[in-house]
């Protein structure tokens, strides 16, 4: 059974359909990335899952608890990093006090609070700043503090809205490592809502791309690549006349598309096992100086742009 099950989830705001009949299942221990353009319904989905909003239709289950029937149990099992979370602290209270307050509200046993807060602050390298007012911390440190808050009660599911958006590269790397560690060692399920495609590609086991509240694509990265790219793509690095290489590529009927870049062409080839050799031979026979012939993996950005621009197939 999935740690997160979204079942025909729909949320309307008047005439606007923010989330449209969404159905998804995310297995336990998965790092899941929800992608989509601005206004696609990502934050509304996160708010529905964190029980901040009630669905218009459908429902969702987190850690076996229904968001409509057992909202308190859902909140006990989830840690949430809200949108623009670096602005969600009590600015006149200390870093330490902010966490102690939320630890009490999350029901962390009184005798464990101090140790839990200390461990998290040390991990996020904020222990030295424990007595500083939250409002006096840098943007990055406030974001780390928000992550500490989301982790206080050892939630089995983490809902993270743009988790590294305000962090410098080193802090962002540390947070990514933390997220990967949580999923692998503690079997925590992480639901990430992000615009940062390279980050999602690096971290997530599964992704879904949504637009206008609808899921356009959902699955593992490898599956999605093979779904969207039935032909494989190859990069041919050429020394000399790139245009001549492209003319030869285009003249082959098994080459479905080609694109010229500065010193290379990228081609999509049908049945590459048989046809790669044919293309290479044709180029060499025509006197093209081929330096390298390598497989080109579709990036998440390629997938994203193809889905958002072309719509789901």
């Amino acid at each position, binding site marked *: 059974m999935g740690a997160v099950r979204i079942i025909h989830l729909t949320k309307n705001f008047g005439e606007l359909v923010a989330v449209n009949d969404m159905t998804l299942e995310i297995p336990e221990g998965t790092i899941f990335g929800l992608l989509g353009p601005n206004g696609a319904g990502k934050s509304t989905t996160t708010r529905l899952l964190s029980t*901040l*909003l009630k669905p218009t239709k459908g429902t969702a289950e987190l850690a076996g608890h229904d968001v409509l029937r057992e909202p308190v149990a859902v909140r006990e099992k989830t840690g*949430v990093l809200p949108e623009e979370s670096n602005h969600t602290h*009590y600015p006149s209270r200390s870093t330490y006090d902010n966490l102690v307050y*939320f630890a009490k*509200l*999350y029901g962390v046993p009184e005798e464990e609070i101090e140790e839990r807060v200390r461990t998290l602050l040390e991990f996020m390298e904020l222990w030295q700043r424990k007595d500083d007012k939250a409002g006096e911390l840098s943007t990055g440190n406030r974001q780390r503090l928000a992550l500490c*808050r989301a982790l206080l009660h050892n939630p089995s599911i983490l809902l993270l809205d743009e988790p590294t958006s305000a962090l410098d590269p080193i802090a962002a790397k540390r947070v990514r490592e933390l997220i990967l560690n949580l999923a692998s060692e503690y079997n925590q399920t992480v639901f990430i809502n992000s615009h940062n495609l390279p980050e999602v590609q690096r971290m997530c086991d599964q992704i879904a791309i949504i637009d206008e509240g609808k899921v356009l694509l959902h699955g593992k990265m490898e599956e999605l690549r093979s779904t969207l790219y039935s032909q494989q793509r190859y990069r041919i690095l050429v020394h000399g006349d790139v245009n001549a290489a492209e003319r030869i590529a285009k003249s082959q009927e098994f080459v479905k598309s080609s694109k010229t870049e500065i010193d290379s062409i990228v081609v999509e080839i049908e049945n590459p096992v048989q046809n790669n050799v044919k293309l290479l031979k044709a180029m060499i026979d025509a006197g093209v100086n081929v330096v390298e012939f390598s497989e080109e993996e579709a990036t998440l950005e390629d997938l994203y742009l193809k889905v958002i621009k072309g719509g789901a197939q």
Partner: protein
Amino acid sequence: MNKSMVVAMWDIRNALTVKFVKYGIVLAAVFGPALVILTVVGMALVTTPTVFNEVIQLILPYMSSMLAIFAVIPTTMLAANALVGEREQNTLEPLLCTPLTDRELLWGKVLGSALPSLIILVSSVVIAEVVTNLFLAILGYPLILVPDLPGLFLLSTAVPLTIFAIVAVMILISGRVTRVYEAYQTTGAVVMTFIIPMILPLAGMDDSGIVDVGMIWFANVLTLVIAIILFAISWTLAITRFNRDRLISLV
């Protein structure tokens, strides 16, 4: 209830980090009993016992109203911080993500806003009664009730109801104002209810300056009726509006 107390204590400590709230509460706690003590003891010092007995009847309605106003003022400050402050600081969303139920959150906000005022009210009455009579005894005057019986009636009924009504009014206006200071000013108007028991007894004063006790009671009962109406209407509306969907719409 335990989590409600956590919220209440946090809200009180949080509000006390704001200077005007901290000093406002301290002044309200000190000014009320100080005014009563200084007025009554001062009068005893500058008048004869006969004059004192006549004038004190005119002054006592003011004393209870002053104590009422000073006890209610902290609620306006604390409720503004507890409800509108969460919105101003963007802390409402993480708070709503915790396992707090709507009821626990509501109780926390109510206790955090009302408890200090209730404590100030009780302590002000006790301090005013004890210290005033201590001085009167030293000066050789007979012991009196300060505030008097109608005053104690007002303070023990209308004031607590008004304190809770202010919290409800704050819940209602928290969706319309974005700044703590605006909210504080808006609910400050509710405090004006206690001008009635100060002014109305004057209408029953005869030519010799003697105040009709019946009119004092009438003014206090009228204030209580207004407080009951205010409490009932504000809480009927506030309870229907204090829910997660509405709170998250403020984020």
